[in-house]
């Protein structure tokens, strides 16, 4: 019993500390909050590059979340915050890179490769079908018949 109690208490402690790392933020209205959530979801943390600002615990991510929050509180729109981040960190901060001549391959590349693969697949299948059609020539059929028929 005592052991269970200790375990329970220590578990409680874990939850308390886990909660402490969540930033408690106040917004003027729900729109600001949803804008904030949207932005920290779409902006990349440059330290742990596969995480967004929301998931990252890095110091820089904390600072950038704070910056995003401050800008939203002072009335900045989505594009303003995005422009601010891109001006400092480049397109790389965006998890959804803009469609430009430099990022064209990124956007079109997979579809292009897919098209090539389908075209190759189509050609192969068509050729196989045609090849199968003339496997057995009349001479071959004659030969088979001779082989299969029991010899007398």
């Amino acid at each position, binding site marked *: 019993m005592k052991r269970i109690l200790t375990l329970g208490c220590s578990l409680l402690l874990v939850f308390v500390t886990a909660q402490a790392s969540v930033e408690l933020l106040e917004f003027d209205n729900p729109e600001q909050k949803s804008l904030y959530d949207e932005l920290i979801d779409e902006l990349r943390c*440059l330290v742990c590059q596969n995480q967004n600002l929301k998931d990252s615990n890095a110091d820089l991510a904390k600072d950038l979340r704070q910056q995003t929050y401050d800008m939203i509180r002072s009335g900045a729109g989505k594009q303003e915050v995005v422009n601010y981040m891109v001006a400092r960190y480049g397109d790389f901060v965006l998890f959804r890179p803009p469609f430009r001549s430099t990022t064209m391959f990124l956007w079109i590349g997979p579809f292009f490769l897919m098209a090539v693969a389908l075209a190759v697949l189509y050609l192969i299948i068509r050729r196989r079908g045609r090849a199968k059609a003339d496997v057995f020539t009349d001479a071959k059929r004659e030969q088979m018949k001779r082989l299969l028929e029991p010899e007398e």
Partner: protein
Amino acid sequence: MITTKARFVIPVVVFAAMVAILGIGLTLDPRKVPSPLVDKPAPGFALPTLNDASITLSAGELAGKVWLLNVWASWCVACRAEHEVLKDLARQQIVPIIGLNYKDKLADARNWLRRLGDPYASSVVDLDGKVGIDWGVYGVPESFVIDHQGIIRYKHIGPITGKDLHDKIIPLIKTLKSTAA
């Protein structure tokens, strides 16, 4: 339709192309994100100096000079490796090195310079990292070369090695200074 020769050549060509592309990929460091600030005017700042908090240094005071901004912190391990290289550069007296002490504790930073030597013409204190954000800093150390017109000409991510200093940074500073004169 496809000749036998092509049947062997095509896979080899495709494979060679993939090896080339992936090989180039291996030489790139994903941690090095190119800065959009290169060839743009350097962001301003006005921060207290590390040695005397009552003195403020602003980027404007460095206008007309070629200078180097080095982002450092006493908690940064790579900065220690870089420190000797910066001291080497400081000894040559070709460029003022301004330190941006990034999110550090004042006492730790001062101790660090006292113990290891101070290559900086001056260090300014960026306690909350706000100026760091303006400069697009995402790791320490980082260095920027700014020309006499206040334009960032080069950003170095990570510690400057002796090779970087002699092959890239010193030649760049010399060209910038000769065009300024």
